[in-house]
């Protein structure tokens, strides 16, 4: 299943992250893109002190293959730094 595949791929690169992968394709009915619309919500320590652009870039890099081959048509990303506990 695509969502699991994306999740495990992200976890492989960022083992300590908390990640939620959501299929938002149903928001785009009537717009036949041929690929999935995906939302990634992710919290990771490595984002601390890093610009949003670089945080998002990291996720783009991890999912480069899926973005290039069209498996993922659109990717939205929400990154967070974990709150100090």
């Amino acid at each position, binding site marked *: 299943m695509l969502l699991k595949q994306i999740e495990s791929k992200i976890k492989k690169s960022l083992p300590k992250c908390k990640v939620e992968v959501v299929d938002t394709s149903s928001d785009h009915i009537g717009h036949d893109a041929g690929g999935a619309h995906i939302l990634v919500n992710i919290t990771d320590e490595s984002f601390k002190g890093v*610009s*949003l*652009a670089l945080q*998002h*870039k990291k996720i*783009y*890099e991890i999912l*480069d293959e899926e*973005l290039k081959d069209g498996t993922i048509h659109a990717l*939205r*990303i*929400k990154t967070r730094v974990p709150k100090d506990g």
Partner: protein
Amino acid sequence: MDDETKEKIENLLKENKVVLFMKGIPTFPQCGFSARVAQILKKNNINFGHFNVLEDDAVRQGIKEFSGWPTIPQLYVDGELIGGCDILVELDENGELEEIFG
């Protein structure tokens, strides 16, 4: 990306402090994401230069390579990539735009 395209992009980034690479132009955007970013900038009274990538395929492909960022729109401040639509929406919602553009 050839040297000519790279130079063109570097010059565009030098011409204005804030540059938006977008599809269409601010008054007639041709993509929802480009429209949204232009709208956020206008709403916050931020002056910006723009470049319509639909009119130049070399820049359209080159800018993705230039920054390692796979999508358009792309917003740059002082030659540095701030991000695309998601990031601008987030910065706007968090009130962090002023810090960047101030």
